[in-house]
């Protein structure tokens, strides 16, 4: 809402500058975007062009001698309409114009120029408000302008403008009257009454004109007739106030409908009565019904649009836009004024489809029915005064609204408890008085009668807010709550995982959960329905991810394109799914590694499968799942993974994640990923961290190596070793895998380091060699492997 302070001053006497007013309004909850003047310029005077000659060195510049009162200035001007005898706006040397523009003395193509003659655009008036003449040249003032005087005052454009960003609940402030009540409350000033006076004549309109309201979405509908209007230009004050409010002046009749809307907050619609017939119907549109609106666009309507109609057809979209066939034209003589209240939600939906307008905005925020009547009266007053209208007596009324003040009770204790204040009954009643509510003490309560204009107030909490606003929240001193003592809590696991991954040398990312639809079902072998956005911003991000891997692969690609080859990243985030009718999400840990990685102290290595597998084991061990997990072959292959370098992570025989190299069809680089479903993993029990007695007996380490076909997996051998060794074996570790000289081409040698210990005694060499022999015998007989000698 753009507020003209001149307009405001019609209803409340204030003497504060526009910036102060804006700040004071902010303090009671009404933010602004801009506060300043309609014309932000200094050092302007009215001048008269005494001489106007062609510039000797230009085909379009003029050299003018301009009388500005105290002196005659030579000014070079390029405007086509510059000529001898016209009165103009002169910016003197030193003048500041909008856009940080300072006027200086200078020479233009060799000719001295001491100022500038201005167009209205140069003074900051938007071009949509300008006449054709004003768009093309400097502004011409009428003959009665006084040379040397202030042109802004002369044009009556010395107005303050504040562009408020109002909250959705304060529809009442979308009017000058509403603003006056608010400003009056701040400065404790009365609000002046609005002039509704006019004379009426003729037969009561309700006999000859009918209204038929066929839908519940219209709660109040008024129709009034005026005749014999003269369509012409509006008086200056109306035009200037409309411009200051951001509305383009058109002609006196259209301008009056807008002026009244700004003044009282009620949108009006004027119909050309002679093209209307004698009946107005309000109904819901039929599906597919057509209507050409006054912007000459044919609209297709549906059953959620409220229309104004004649018996024949729809003639307007209620609250949004009138129809082309009945709008006021330059030849219009007689007018039907419509003032009504339509359902805000319906208007909002329709206007979202068609166009948001000043009118629809007001219907959406809600209206005071008292103002619906007031608007008609005010329009009659202005039409009579400025359009020579004859007002026909009577009015057609359909009214289901409540108009009397709302009764709300509150106590002083209620107020002090919520605000943390120590206000007295008098303090509180004074606030209501300032707001022009009726408030008085009654049986320990305060009974408040709230006028209908304040649609936002209906319960005591609303009144508490009003007291807080007007009393001033700055006057309330902050303190900390005094509540029973208790320990706070948070999810430590996520943080522990994050810290662990950081300590492993990985960089934490934060990726978008929205990915392209084609990526959303990659990198997984699970079945689910894609979760597509109904209204995405871009196709690239139109679906919720299931796996985090697509997001991580994107991050790797982004870095690669910036020539960064070593990427080791992780993230804890969400993956989303729909399985059957269930929607859900899982917390996931995802890792991507490629390029070089440091392995311990200074040992750089290219990432391979075993490094990322090590990262997976490290996190599983750290979370307490040691000895409960294994890496198993994929049950169902995932197309995006290397078939020979991918594994599922199984914890307690349940798959919780994957480790894999990306398939060469995805990237030629060696890129490895790991993903663990944390919700699934963390639902599994872990052992408690508990002290174990340290053995008093020494452990004995023994190494041995087996040669086997390359296809045989180490796990197979390990299982047999463990079984053969029994409880004396406390640890088994692979310390070398060898292929090459002395080993056949299709074979490999794996060397194991075994640790033996007996908790009850020192093991003897003999005891160990018995176990050792048994291990060799069992491995050789059960696996296709031979001891390497």
């Amino acid at each position, binding site marked *: 809402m753009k507020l003209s302070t001149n307009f405001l001053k019609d209803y409340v006497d204030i003497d504060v500058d526009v910036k102060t007013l804006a700040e004071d309004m902010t303090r009671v*909850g009404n933010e602004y975007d801009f506060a300043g003047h309609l014309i932000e310029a200094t050092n302007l005077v009215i001048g008269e062009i005494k001489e106007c000659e062609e510039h000797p060195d230009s085909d379009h510049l003029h050299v003018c001698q301009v009388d500005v009162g105290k002196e005659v200035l030579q000014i070079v001007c390029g405007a086509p309409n510059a000529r001898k005898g016209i009165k103009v706006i002169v910016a003197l040397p030193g003048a500041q114009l909008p856009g940080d523009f300072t006027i200086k003395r200078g020479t233009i193509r060799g000719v001295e120029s001491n100022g500038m003659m201005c167009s209205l655009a140069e003074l900051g008036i938007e071009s949509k408000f300008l006449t054709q003449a004003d768009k093309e040249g400097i502004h011409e003032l009428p003959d009665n302008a006084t040379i040397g005087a202030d042109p802004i005052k002369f044009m009556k454009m010395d107005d303050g403008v504040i562009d408020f960003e109002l909250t959705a609940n304060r529809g009442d402030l979308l009017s000058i009257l509403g603003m006056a009540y608010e400003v009056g409350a701040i400065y404790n000033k009365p609000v002046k009454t609005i002039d509704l006076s006019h004379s009426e004549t003729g037969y009561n309109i309700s006999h000859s004109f009918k209204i038929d309201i066929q839908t519940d979405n219209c709660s109040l509908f008024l129709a009034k007739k005026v005749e014999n209007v003269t369509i012409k230009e509006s008086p200056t004050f109306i035009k200037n106030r409309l411009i200051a409010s951001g509305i383009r002046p058109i002609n006196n009749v259209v301008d009056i409908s807008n002026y009244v809307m700004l003044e009282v907050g009620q949108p009006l619609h004027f119909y050309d009565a002679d093209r209307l017939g004698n009946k107005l119907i309000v109904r819901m549109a039929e599906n597919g019904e057509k209507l050409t609106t006054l912007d000459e666009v044919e609209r297709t309507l549906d059953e959620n649009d409220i229309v104004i109609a004649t018996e024949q057809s729809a003639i307007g979209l209620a609250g949004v836009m009138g129809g082309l066939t009945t709008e006021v034209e330059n030849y219009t003589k007689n007018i039907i004024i419509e003032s009504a209240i339509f359902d805000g939600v319906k208007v909002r939906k329709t206007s979202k489809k068609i166009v948001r307008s000043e009118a629809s905005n007001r219907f959406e925020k809600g209206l005071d029915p008292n103002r619906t009547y007031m608007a008609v009266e005010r329009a009659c007053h202005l039409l009579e005064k400025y359009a020579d209208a004859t007002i026909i007596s009577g009015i057609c009324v359909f009214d289901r609204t409540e108009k009397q003040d709302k009764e709300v009770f509150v106590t002083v204790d209620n107020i002090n408890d919520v*605000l943390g204040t120590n206000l007295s009954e008098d303090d509180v009643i004074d606030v209501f008085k300032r707001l022009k509510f009726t408030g008085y003490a009654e049986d320990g309560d305060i009974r408040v009668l709230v006028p209908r204009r304040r649609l936002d107030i209906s319960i005591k909490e609303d009144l508490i807010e009003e007291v807080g606003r007007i009393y001033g929240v700055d006057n309330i001193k902050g303190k900390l709550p005094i509540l029973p003592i208790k320990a706070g809590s948070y999810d430590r696991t996520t943080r522990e995982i994050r810290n662990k991954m950081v300590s492993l040398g990985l960089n934490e990312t934060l990726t978008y959960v929205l990915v392209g639809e084609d990526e959303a079902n990659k990198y997984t072998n699970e079945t689910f329905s894609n979760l597509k956005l109904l209204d995405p911003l871009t196709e690239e991000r139109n679906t919720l991810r299931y796996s985090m891997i697509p997001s991580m692969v994107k991050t790797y690609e982004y870095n690669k394109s910036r020539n960064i080859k070593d990427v080791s990243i992780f993230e804890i985030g969400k993956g989303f799914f729909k399985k059957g009718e269930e929607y859900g999400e899982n917390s996931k840990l995802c890792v991507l590694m490629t390029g070089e990685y440091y392995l311990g102290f200074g040992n750089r290595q290219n990432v391979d499968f075993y490094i990322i597998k090590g990262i997976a084991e490290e996190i599983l061990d750290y979370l307490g799942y040691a000895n409960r997990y294994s890496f198993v072959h994929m049950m169902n292959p995932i197309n995006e993974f290397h078939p020979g370098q991918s594994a599922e992570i199984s914890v307690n025989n349940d798959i919780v994640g994957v480790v894999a190299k990306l398939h060469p069809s995805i990237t030629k680089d060696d890129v490895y990923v790991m993903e663990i479903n944390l919700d699934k993993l963390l639902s599994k029990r872990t052992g408690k961290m508990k002290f174990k007695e340290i053995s008093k007996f020494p452990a004995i380490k023994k190494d041995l190596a087996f040669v086997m076909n390359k296809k045989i997996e180490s796990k197979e051998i390990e299982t047999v070793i463990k079984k053969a060794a029994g409880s004396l074996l406390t640890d088994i570790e692979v310390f070398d895998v060898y292929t090459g000289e002395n080993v056949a081409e299709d074979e490999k040698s794996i060397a194991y380091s075994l640790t033996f210990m007996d908790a009850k005694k020192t093991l003897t060499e003999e005891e160990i060699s018995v176990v050792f022999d048994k291990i060799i015998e069992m491995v050789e007989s059960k696996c296709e492997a031979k001891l390497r000698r």
Partner: protein
Amino acid sequence: MKEQIEAIKQKSISEISNAKDLKELNDLRVQYLGKKGELTSVLRGMGALSPEERPVIGSLVNEVKDELESIISQKEESFKAEELNKKLESETIDITLPSKKIKRGSKHPLNRTIEEIEDLFVSMGYDVVEGPELETDEFCFERLNLPQGHPARDMQDSFYITDSYLLRTQTSAVQAREMLRKGGKDPIRMICVGKTYRREDDATHSHQFNQVEGLVIDKKENNVSLADLKGTLEVFMKKMLGENTELRFRPSYFPFTEPSYEVDVSCFNCGGKGCSLCKKTGWIELLGSGIVHPNVLKMNGYDPELYGGFAFGTGIDRLAMFKYGITDMRYLYTNDVRFLGQFDRMD
């Protein structure tokens, strides 16, 4: 005989002091003090002495023996020290050559900020709770007093996947979940931190961003008031933005609180003098807050006559950007490793 002993003594002392290394020293030790050494031979000749002379000579020999022993071991010590010094010198390295590094990871600046916020509120007795990011319309809007068609829904253009499911536009959705979980009786002191989504994407808005939501509900007699909200947010903002930070509460409108306040903080860029960040106002709008609306309490199981409290929420992205001097919001989500890697140490 005395003269003979004295001569041996003088000769040996001179030879020992001239010894060049440990080996020579050992040879001298054998030569003089060994079983067949010169001094020992003298003792053997004692049989020819008178019984009166024997003890005198005997003790003299022992004296000389002790003296030589002592000189030899001193000399030995100094040889050993010398040898060690040589060894140490030969082992001296160039300490300015690079170390064998361990790769250091990094924690995302947003998560660092989130952890700081969580720690602060946990220290004040708040629980950190979580809620789904894929939320229902019911929890994101309706249970927060934002029915269908409410104009305030326009402020939050949303990503819906069906008529009733959407990516949450605000962490406030967790308020209702927590109230229902607490069953309308237990007091609540919680924050929820997490990702939120709105259908907008430009230089200053990311469609995915982060919020923190705070909710305190207690019995009316414990009097959780606007003054407590002011105090709590003062502590919060001063911790995040510095002790000199000032707060300005402006009455505003949110459907889930009544009264509602927007909270500005004194501009952390210019300290309130006015700059381009604060659009020359000296203030930056940072939080939304208020006293929990009775409808919200009622809808989620708390009797507004018996319980009351406050709620607040703020975006975290801007706090993180301020904290680390990040100049462009897009850095937070593009995950350039050169950006991420900068956040690799203790705060």
